[in-house]
């Protein structure tokens, strides 16, 4: 069972690492997989809008080499990202950091949904204002019910 799981993991690693140029690949498949996952999150800073995983630009090749070397040297993903940000600025990270400057972009989607649902709940649960007759459409009369049933059953 453990062997099967190990093989499955290995297969996953291979299919991830496989499309890289064979001469650039790291010998250890697990390290190569980690490098490939990182490539997808790093911008080719001279390209129009590509990750270094996609780009054939020279700089992308250099960056891939840098990342692979650092992965091989045993540095963590966070360390590698920090190194790249120091060198090229935050622009190089395709996944923006969760920082004060980016908080609006990260939180807005969820704030909008929460606010929208809150407004909806307030509207639908609001009791009828005092002094006003209950909405006539709130309930059906027995006559309407039977007509509805007739319509429904054709």
């Amino acid at each position: 069972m453990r062997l099967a799981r190990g093989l499955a993991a290995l297969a996953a690693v291979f299919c991830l690492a496989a499309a890289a140029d064979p001469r650039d690949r790291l010998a250890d498949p697990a390290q190569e997989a980690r490098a490939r996952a990182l490539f997808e999150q790093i911008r080719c800073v001279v390209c129009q809008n590509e990750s270094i995983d996609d780009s054939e630009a020279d700089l992308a090749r250099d960056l891939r080499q840098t990342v692979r070397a650092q992965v091989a040297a045993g540095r963590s993903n966070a360390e590698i990202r920090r190194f790249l940000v120091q060198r090229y600025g935050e622009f190089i990270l395709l996944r923006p950091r969760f920082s004060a400057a980016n908080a609006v972009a990260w939180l807005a989607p969820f704030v909008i949904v929460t606010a929208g649902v809150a407004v909806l709940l307030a509207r639908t649960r609001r009791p009828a204002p005092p002094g006003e007759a209950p909405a006539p459409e709130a309930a059906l009369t027995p006559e309407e019910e039977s007509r509805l049933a007739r319509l429904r059953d054709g």
Partner: protein
Amino acid sequence: MTAELGSFALVLALVLSLAQAGFSIAGRVRGSAVLAGAGEGAAAGAFLGVAFAFAALMIAFVTSDFSVANVAENSHTAKPLLYKIAGVWGSHDGSMLLWCLALTGFGAVIALGGGGLPARLKATAVATQGVLGALFLAYAVFASNPLLRLANPPVEGASLNPILQDPFLAIHPPFLYAGYVGMSVVYSLAVAALIEGRVDAAWARWVRPWALASWSLLTIGITLGSFWAYYELGWGGWWAWDPVENASFMPWIAATALLHSAVVTEKRGALAAWTVFLALMAFTFSMLGAFLVRSGVLMSVHAFAVNPRRGMLLLAILGVAAGSGFGLFAWRAPSLPPGGLFAAVSRETALVVNNIFLSAAVATVLLGTLYPLIRQALTGDMASFGAPYYNLTFTPLMAVVLLILPIGPLLAWKRADLGGALRRLWAAALVALAAGALVFALVQPRKALAAFGVALGVWLVAGSIAELADRSRLGKVGAGEALRRLRGLPRGAWGMTLAHVGIGVFVLGAAFETAWRVEAAKVMGVGDRLTLGVYELNLKSVGPVEGPNFAAERAMISVTRAGREVCQATPARRFYPVQRQTTSKVAICPPGVSDVYIVLGDRRTGDAGQPVWLVRAYWNRWSRLIFAGPLIMALGGLISLSDRRLRFGLPQRAAKAALEPAE
């Protein structure tokens, strides 16, 4: 001579657009049918003028008239005829002319075909359309005229960017632009409704066919673009959250929200102000898209035909059109009548929830696209919002709303029974859970999230089928009776079901392809083999090919599965001597839901001095569902459009038909 006539026609179209606005306003103010009719005639004339200019440019391209600057910059005598024709919209100026053609075209259709509209509303809408036409035609005439001559014409043209020389250039932009600009009619009807103070069920019914048609066209346009990006190397695959892709996605999301909120306005008279807001928003996003794409203000892999200086003019047009539209909204919307009441569990609530999530989705895409610009302007440093940002914000939001989608159509208006709706979906839920569990157990490597994605896709498809079964009362009445009921369903109902099935099919493909794509790469000589999942690739030969305006190196690769050949793939590398540029033509085979996707790399020298090539291959499993799904959605939109209840000029007859007993 043709180019001068074309320029003249373009100026004439501008004047006619102004006349269209002027006559229509005068007709509305004085209540004169003659003046309003003159405005409608001017709208038709403006369209004919732009069509003439467009034809003149096309003739210049086809005849390789390099005295026209745009042709000299974007064409070449050796370019195939298809790309001479499609090259008309391959440049900034030409694409803006296509935009104007669609804009005046829609203006002419509403002027001549909007017979069912009340005279005052129609005159105001035609006037608004005229103002929009005048704004964009002024831009085309004064800043972006593609028919200008060169004093010293070159003997040969510079030709079109090789990467754009693809059959999809002929079909992707026309669909996309028709979709973008179709929203202008929705915008004009919204402005007219605000001015006339009339936003009711009838108005929502008039808006819906235009919204449906533009939404369907936009869906097709985006899908074509997505497929093009998928097979064009270096464009980031079928969806990369690239700013240009986002620019087309924002009006689409707004239009999707509009389609759903307009139903509430039409059936229940509620959400009137919100529906008008979305109608204004859809075209605003279209214009924002034109600005973002054409100004090059954002970095994109799809940045072609970019012109920053004139981008500012487009921003000004956007400001004028959107500013006056929303200004009018702020002034008039508070006076709109409030809508009908509904309970917390009802069809209305379901559609409002849909709108809340779609609004959050469009805000996410807008923020992700513009935030780098905003941050740079405020703090001076640059940030990137790439695919990982959207995967953590947009994707979970959509997963939630898609999860509750099948319940919505089963809820009644005003007050619904949630338990009853869920009971009618238990079979669909069971099928979805079983499919998810099966995929989780069988597909290696195990991925829980992707298995959830598959279950979600199946849930959407099965839920839609369950809704159809419920409507036909299958199981409660005989099969013949159920079939008769199915046939009797209005086209609009079929359209909705198909659109929901389509999104399910898309989710299936997107989840499976993203999670379980198999990749392989190998430096191969002739005769070498490469294993790709269940397939084996055998490089049979590599030979030269002469194209009309390129020289290529093409490989012949036999793809076998379990010893049997399933297809022959011919990936190639093309060299275009005019631009001194190399492009890669990938090969996609075999037929089925999954693609074997093969890329031929550059030639290298092997150990023994023989030529070898780096071959990359991908087994993109279920990838075709990604494109089939949205096409099913668009088909749903078009079927819904053919519903007689929505047809223009037929409200009276349709109302009469509804009164007659069903056969």
